């Protein structure tokens, strides 16, 4: 196993781990604001790591640039959508929650 | 080789759909009727072409099957195309007078898409293309049902949509299995390689269940009466006369092309039993309805049962009798299309006259609106299968076939069904013959409405005298059973 492969594996696993952490945050965090935080930040990093791992594998520069472009676009998109969600939540006056509290309104609406 | 007439069957209604969506009201109507004329003419040309060169195929995009999709004109396709042209034209005329402008505006595109779908189904000899055609048909039909936009018709449309979607998926499942097994979608090629294995039986089973659900064969019928009974009158006529025929047509095509007449008789027997149940149940229910259009809708259920009876009678042991059943089935389908459309239109006129749905409100109509009752009655003659009518001729051939094959149970069912249908139709009649006080308090439908209903009914009677014109288009029995 070459060094490159080890590096790649490391990056991939780290990226996947970031995704897992982000998802865990989504489940565990108490309110909208903290949840978007977990999602956008962790996922961007995770994606970045994975893209990096893939770039190590490609031959052409064009392809590498494309991968980077994807990362960039996703970052902008998630930043924007994170902002929008927070902004809308603020508009609707959704309160901040302390750890341990659970958001009731979403659940109750489903039933 | 002239490609125009066959492609015209699809292109003209498509143009109609486009035109009716794009143009303003006046031009929309004008162009629609111009295109209807064009389509009628196109059908006539096609008929001539068929007379001169017999059955022919045409590869769409010049890619022959199995790679491309081939359309095929044979006698069966031509008969159905002519049938839909006649019924649809008259229904369009009726709708033009009957519907409010706002409804009419929405009616036209649906109508045209419906026609596209019908013609594409009649012509297609490709399994997947038939699926797309079926979906187009169902969605157009659902749209038409929902046209009146009240809660009742919405519920009917939803019920119909779900049944239709389930049916399409069943069909598609079968197509998937068949493609995987035989590697082709062309019906012609499939028929060359086809053999009844386990997987192809399962495939056909799914396809038939799906198609029969769309046809509303008992016991998968419960969506039909509210949808056909609750829709606007010209829509009911189109649905009952044409739409249910499409899925049945595919069943018939598959059955004959794949030579299922040599299949184990249990399949045919099952179809026959379902048909018998439909005849008796539909007739019985029609007899107990209090709403005129529901009577007519349930009668459609019963009539579908008659079509089903041809399957147990198609057998390769007795080609002559089998061919009689085939011819009889086609005649019944055709007669039902004409008569049921006429009957729905006439029923719509009657409802228009009284303004009420209840059968009791019909009292006195026979005195003041005899023409509508007459139209209803003539259609009823064909539905009951009394001579002289297309319905009778079809029934006669089926009975003959059953007798020649000693399948007496179907004869019994047909006769019972005839009596039941006579009972429910004359029941409507006896309401109209009641004499009541109060003079002529009914509205007068415009003559165009009355005459369009009457013309369809008269056609169904005339079919009783001109059956040979139709049957001559069909191949002789050596070809049908291959």
């Amino acid at each position, binding site marked *: 196993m070459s060094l490159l492969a080890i590096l790649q594996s490391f990056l991939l696993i780290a990226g996947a781990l970031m995704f897992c952490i982000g998802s865990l945050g989504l489940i565990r965090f108490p309110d909208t604001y903290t949840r978007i935080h977990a999602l956008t930040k962790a996922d961007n990093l995770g994606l970045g790591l994975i893209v990096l791992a893939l770039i190590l594998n490609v031959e052409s520069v064009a392809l590498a640039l494309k991968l980077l472009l994807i990362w960039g*676009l996703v970052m*902008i998109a998630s930043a*924007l959508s994170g*902002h*929008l969600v927070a902004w809308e939540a603020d508009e609707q006056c959704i309160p901040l929650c302390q750890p341990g509290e659970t958001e009731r309104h979403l659940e109750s609406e*489903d039933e | *080789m*002239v*490609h125009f007439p066959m*492609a015209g069957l699809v*292109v003209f209604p*498509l143009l109609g*759909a*486009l035109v009716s*969506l*794009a143009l303003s009201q006046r031009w929309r109507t004008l162009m629609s009727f111009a295109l209807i004329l064009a389509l009628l003419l196109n059908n006539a040309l096609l008929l001539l072409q068929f007379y001169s060169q017999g059955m022919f195929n*045409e*590869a*769409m*995009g*010049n890619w022959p099957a*199995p*790679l*491309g*999709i081939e359309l095929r004109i044979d006698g069966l396709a031509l008969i159905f195309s002519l049938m839909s042209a006649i019924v649809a034209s008259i229904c369009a005329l009726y709708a033009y007078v009957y519907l409010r402008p*706002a409804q009419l505006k*929405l009616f036209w*595109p*649906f109508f045209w*898409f419906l026609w*596209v*779908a019908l013609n*594409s189904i009649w012509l297609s000899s490709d399994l*997947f*293309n038939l699926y*797309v*055609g079926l*979906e*187009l048909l169902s*969605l157009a039909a*659902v*749209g038409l049902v*929902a*046209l009146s*936009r009240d809660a009742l018709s919405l519920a009917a449309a939803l019920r119909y949509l779900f049944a239709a979607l389930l049916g399409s998926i069943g069909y598609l*499942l079968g197509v998937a*299995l068949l493609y*995987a*097994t*035989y*590697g*082709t979608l062309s019906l012609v*090629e499939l028929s060359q*390689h086809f053999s009844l*294995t*386990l*997987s192809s039986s*399962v*495939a056909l*089973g799914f396809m038939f269940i799906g198609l029969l659900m769309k046809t509303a064969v008992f016991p998968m019928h419960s969506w039909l009466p509210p949808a056909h009974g609750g829709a606007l009158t010209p829509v009911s006529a189109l649905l009952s006369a044409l739409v249910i025929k499409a899925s049945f047509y595919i069943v018939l095509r598959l059955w004959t092309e794949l030579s299922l007449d040599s299949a184990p008789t249990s399949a045919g027997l099952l179809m026959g039993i379902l048909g018998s149940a439909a005849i008796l149940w539909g007739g019985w229910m029609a007899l107990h309805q209090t709403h005129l259009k529901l009577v007519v809708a349930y009668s459609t259920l019963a009539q579908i049962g008659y079509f089903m009876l041809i399957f147990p009678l198609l057998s390769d042991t007795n080609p002559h009798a089998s061919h009689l059943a085939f011819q009889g089935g086609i005649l019944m389908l055709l007669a039902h299309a004409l008569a049921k459309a006429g009957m729905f239109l006439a029923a719509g006129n009657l409802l228009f006259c009284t303004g009420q749905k209840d059968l009791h409100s019909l009292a006195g109509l026979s005195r003041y609106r005899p023409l509508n009752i007459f139209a209803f009655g003539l259609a009823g003659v064909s539905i009951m299968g009394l001579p002289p009518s297309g319905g009778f001729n079809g029934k006669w051939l089926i009975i003959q076939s059953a007798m020649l094959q000693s399948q007496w149970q179907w004869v019994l069912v047909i006769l019972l069904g005839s009596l039941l249908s006579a009972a429910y139709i004359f029941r409507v009649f006896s309401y109209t013959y009641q004499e009541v006080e109060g003079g002529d308090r009914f509205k007068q439908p415009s003559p165009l409405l009355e005459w369009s209903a009457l013309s369809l009914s008269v056609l169904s009677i005339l079919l009783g005298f001109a059956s040979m014109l139709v049957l001559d288009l069909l191949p002789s029995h050596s070809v049908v059973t291959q």
Partner: protein
Amino acid sequence: MNELIDLTLVCILLGLASLSLFTQSLFRAVMFFILLGLILALVWIRLDAPDIALAEAAIGAGITGILLLDALAHLRATSNTPPQLRQLKQPRFWLALISGAGVILLLALAISEPLAPAVALDLQVSENLTNSGVTHPITAILLNFRSYDTLLEVAVLVLAALVAVTLRQSDEHPVVNEYLPNPLLHACLKLFFPMIFLVSMYLLWAGAAQPGGAFQAGAVLAAAFVLFYLVGLKTQLAQNDIYLKGGWIFGLALFVLVGSMPLLYGQPFLTYPDSQAGIFILLIELGLTLSIGWILFSMFLLSQSSPLQKKDSP
């Protein structure tokens, strides 16, 4: 190893399917369904069908999901009863169980038969690919070999949009454009629009040689339109009946027109002139992309104008 991944995927697929049907909350059901769509996209990749994967992600999961969520928001107002497990005792349950099990049994039996297709259609596809005007086989099939199917399929789409218009109440007020007055969104989207269009057109262009094509491009375009709408730009176009319907039928009309031209020269319907098939296919695809985008967008738009929030009703 690969089989293990496949099996895992199938298990996830079935699990998600069960969850989306039997979870108590409808909202979650829809969520699981969207998730299922994404997993399906992966499955399609595993099935060597990147085109379908694209379509599934964009159309299947994306648009269906959005429409479902949108409908869900409206259905909140209704007496929306979650499925009761009491149903277990009803005959309906047994009917469902028997039918479901029967379907599985029959299909599994049918599938387990060894296959030996008599006709090798894929060979014919590759043989004729050079004459089709494009190099990507799926585009060749969709827009040349079986373009008749595609024609009818576009008609189905138009029809669906038409039903939406039909059911729009005449007494309804036109849509009040409730765009999001967020400055950041405005700024970013203005930046993004050209890019989204570019992506859409790229998908369209790429379709000739690799995965992509009119439907995927149309879905992206629809997304662009929706964003347009959200920032409050130029959506009055969609309020006008002529533009609305004109947009729907543009692609279909172009298709019919191009398809019927050969009839005048004695060629069958939908035949492309020799050696120019590629251009005509691109032309048709362009029209279809615009129309599909417009249709999908107007579905979204028309759903906005239904006055469904009758929260005060019992």
